[in-house]
């Protein structure tokens, strides 16, 4: 219903979203005015001055200084107003408020990795407290990506070998989409993430649990959650369909053909090597695009993923 009354911008969820939308709707109504003016003149003139007789004569008027000045000066003033407004809001979007929660964002084809100050790492899922500025220090390990959260109205390119900054302050609880907005190849449209904004108390609880969770859960369950949280699902399905990478369904224990013509059995060692040295053996029909998980997954987490893949094997 909201999308009917407000067809354009998504619901506002950050402190600057309101500012951006205010400018958006200011421009919207200014341009709507000119659009209606111009189109009604086209339509009116077309009807009123359509050729009725084949020998009509027309006037030779080719100038009207007052009119010409009017349609030069009025748009000039309006565009300067729009520029100044956009400029003012842009400055606000550029300057990070004091004492933000600082999170390191690493973009890699095709996932987002978020490193929290105390060492916690999440993939494709950014959990932040409500009402506190979050500063994102972003860099890429391969090509240019762009961190885009429509609900927050922020977008910033993420460049290799250089840091860029974005910041936001969530104003409502909920889950918001993260898109990669700079074309980055095959998995570009799968490079999605979520920002989860929760109250400060819940955030503290989440932070405490997130670090501890690993030890208490059974391996295959942990694997199932890692499969999502470490972004395996960006490229690998569990349904039998091939994505960027091979599916995990019925993978375990089956024969795998490699691009160099070799064959092998998908056992524990094969899976472990594929996670840590993805370029060592490329499955036939796929591109060597998977990055290594060396240093990202702990041993227990690798075991957990293998257990999960096993559980998807032949029943």
């Amino acid at each position, binding site marked *: 219903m909201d999308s009917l009354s407000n067809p354009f911008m*998504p619901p506002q969820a950050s402190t600057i979203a309101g500012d951006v939308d205010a400018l958006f709707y200011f421009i919207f109504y200014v341009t709507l005015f000119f659009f209606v003016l111009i189109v009604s003149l086209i339509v009116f003139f077309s009807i009123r001055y359509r050729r009725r007789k084949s020998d009509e004569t027309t006037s030779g008027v080719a100038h009207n200084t007052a009119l010409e000045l009017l349609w030069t000066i009025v748009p000039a003033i309006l565009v300067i107003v729009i520029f100044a407004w956009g400029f003012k809001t842009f400055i606000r979007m550029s300057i990070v408020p004091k004492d933000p929660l600082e999170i390191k964002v690493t973009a890699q084809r095709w996932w987002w990795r978020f490193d929290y100050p105390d060492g916690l790492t999440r993939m494709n899922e950014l959990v932040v407290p409500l009402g506190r500025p979050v500063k994102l220090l972003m860099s890429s390990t391969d090509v240019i990506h762009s961190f885009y959260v429509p609900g927050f109205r922020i977008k910033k390119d993420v460049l290799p070998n250089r840091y860029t900054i974005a910041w936001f302050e969530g104003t409502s609880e909920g889950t918001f989409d993260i898109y990669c907005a700079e074309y980055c190849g*095959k998995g570009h449209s799968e490079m999605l993430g979520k920002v989860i904004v929760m109250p400060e108390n819940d955030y503290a609880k989440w932070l405490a649990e997130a670090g501890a969770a690993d030890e208490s859960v059974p391996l295959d369950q942990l694997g199932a959650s890692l499969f999502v949280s470490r972004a395996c699902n960006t490229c690998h399905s569990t349904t039998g369909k091939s994505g960027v990478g091979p599916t995990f369904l019925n993978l375990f224990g089956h024969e795998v053909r490699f691009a160099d013509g070799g064959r092998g059995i998908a056992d524990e060692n094969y899976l472990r090597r594929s996670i840590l040295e993805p370029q060592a053996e490329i499955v036939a029909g796929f591109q060597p695009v998977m990055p290594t998980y060396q240093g990202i997954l702990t041993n227990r987490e690798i075991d957990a993923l293998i257990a999960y893949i096993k559980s998807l094997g032949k029943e």
Partner: protein
Amino acid sequence: METAIKNNYLNSPRGILSWLTTLDHKRIGILYLASVMFSFLLGGIFALLIRIKLLVPGEFLMSAEAYNRVFTLHGAIMIFLFIIPSIPATLGNFALPMMIGARDVAFPRLNLASWYIYVAGAVFAVYSMVQGGADTGWTFYTPYSTMTTSSVISMTLGAFILGFSSIFTGLNFIVTIHKLRAPGLTWFKLPLFVWALYATAIIQILATPVLGITLLLLILERAFSIGVFNPAMGGDPVLYQHFFWFYSHPAVYIMILPAMGIVSELVSVFSHKKIFGYKAIAFSSFGIAFISFLVWGHHMFTSGQSDLASMIFSFLTFLVAIPSGIKVFNWLATLYKGSISFETPMLYGLSFLFLFTVGGLTGMFLGALATDVHLHDTYFIVAHFHYVMFGGTVMAFFGGLHYWWPKIWGKIYNKTWALVAWLFTFVGFNITFFTQFILGSRGMPRRYYSYPAKYEGLHEISTIGSIVLGVGMLIMAIYLIASLFRGRSAPANPWNALTLEWQTDSPPPTANFAATPVVTGGFYDYDKVSPNPKGDS
């Protein structure tokens, strides 16, 4: 029967070879027309493939890799092989020398060379397709373009070569306009289409060489890792974007300025009224051409360029709005108290006014820094530039094509089918691309193979629109080709226009005019003639 047909540039001399070695600007215009329309067909097929894929999220019709190649080819072909040469090299080549009363362009050999270079560039682009195509997007951003395994070098080499063809056309036009005007044709009597082509040519010669050096560096970077654009070697990918947009933003005006020139002609001829604000329209073309070089950074507000640069570029960007607005208002004022006839070219002329207004006004959202951050790289951008490029340039190109068609071929097309095709095109276009404004402002990023389910409905509408648009194009192709074989013969001046090309036969003789015309009156003095004078010369 044979004796009834006068000798004209189409029938003498005869033979394929005489066409392939022709130095006649009219024939070269037709060679360009054929190749450009073929590219348009190719690019259009890719466009429909994109839209059909986007009917549903997830895997459908083609893989993500194939999709990435398809949208790259759509963009590269439409930009480099279709829109940039579309108006100047076809209609401009055909009409410009006649409009200034010349027998040819200043350098006919260079003109023919430019077509052969175009073909050579196209061959490289096609070769890239045969190799599987490039998957970088038409912008070839580094470091993606230096890392991908797809066939980037032949595609960029194709674009590099096409640049020369564009430069040669521009160079030729400038010299032609300076040196070959008919006696009595002073600067401020020039038709506005000629002014527009002149401003376009200036951009072509100033901006295109930078594309050349950029693509050369890109090719060297990819082939030999020279490091200038490679961040791992101390180079800077954002510098590539500066280089690329220094050409590619002005290039947008290479595309739109000639379209504005055509619309100036159409509005005046079909309102049968003196053009309002002749000098304002002529000078605003130059204003736009000049400012177009100062605004490229507005493609880079979120790229990590300095905030200072973003602010300067944003400010300069808004300056473009003023001359563009002046043009639109002058056209409107020309309609006022005119005697408007809705011939096919005028339908496209008025469509241009409508669609360019939408395209131009939505540019305001993108020039403003704060809103651009949200809208950049979304479907809002896609919609905006299709409104300007298709709604603007291509609509005006169709207008010009229908306007000069009787002159080019000496034949008249079926006006009823022309009306039907226009209706499909106009309606289909708006359905396709207006929905994309909504998609974009809701956050749908561009160049996405798949998309979240919430965007599905709008994508479906857009795809339906694209099919309607495609049907319109198909009808147009059929009746235009049919007119060549079955069309009625066209009189010398079917629209009662005053510019010089209408004062000679349709189709014109090889030498354009029986005797060098001497210009005395104004080309827009429609107040002094009746719309339907009997016995025009």
